[in-house]
């Protein structure tokens, strides 16, 4: 139970940071997403994101920062194993599940449903 609560707290706090950026700086949500992923990569490469994951679990891995961290960790692992080539293969290899899932489900949903207006 405490793990779920910690995920809730950490995830909520990370999203608050995003909301503060939207409301105060007028940065568009699309830019926030970019900012979060790149920040995740930077934190990940210095190993600064792992403590958050250890504490908050999905609260750290589900936000886009976690996606950035996955890219960083992937590239570290591949550079360790394959050297220079790993720079090019590491990131996408680690993120493959996410990207492929998004494309697959995106395509399926596009086929079976259509956009609606809300009133």
């Amino acid at each position, binding site marked *: 139970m405490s793990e*779920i609560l910690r*995920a*809730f707290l950490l*995830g*909520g706090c*990370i*999203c*608050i940071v*995003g*909301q*503060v950026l*939207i*409301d105060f700086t007028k940065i568009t*949500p*699309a*830019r926030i*997403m*970019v900012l979060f*992923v*790149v920040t*995740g*990569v*930077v934190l990940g*490469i210095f190993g600064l994101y792992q403590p958050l994951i250890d504490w*908050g*679990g*999905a*609260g750290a*891995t*589900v936000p*886009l920062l*976690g*996606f*950035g961290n*996955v*890219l*960083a960790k992937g*590239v*570290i692992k591949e*550079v*360790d194993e394959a050297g220079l080539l*790993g720079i090019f293969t*590491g*990131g*996408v290899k680690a993120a493959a*599940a*996410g*990207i492929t*899932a*998004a*494309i697959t*489900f*995106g*395509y399926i*949903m*596009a086929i*079976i449903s*259509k*956009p609606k207006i*809300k009133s």
Partner: protein
Amino acid sequence: MKKQISKHEYQKLVEEKAPGSHFIKNLFAAFITGGAICAVGQIVMLIFENFGADKELSASATSIIMIFIGAFLTGINIYDEIGKFGGAGASVPITGFSNSIVSPAMEFKKEGHVMGVGAKMFLIAGPVLVYGIFASVIAGLFYFIWKQVM
């Protein structure tokens, strides 16, 4: 005709008079929404761990499930409502990444499968991948050089 107000003055006036966003409400909504999505993620992760998956495997499996949930809620026309309420709480989690891919795919289906769904799918999420992956290459290069030096 003489101008009553300069451009600069007008812009200042607009900024001063513009209604502010409901800041406290927005923060609260972002916290609740983002927190709830992550809590669901944690539950999914715990289920995978319960079935004996290791931490790394259950983390990627959780990502896939969360992306599916985001896609599904988008497909049944609900995620935009969550986004309207939760703001960053809905766009920062990976479900929001999924929403940003599924929503243009649905929207542009009418323009065909290739130039519509295919070409527009990454209309919003494209930059995330471009800069995310590019950042990982820079990070990898940095790490590679650091390894040689140390």
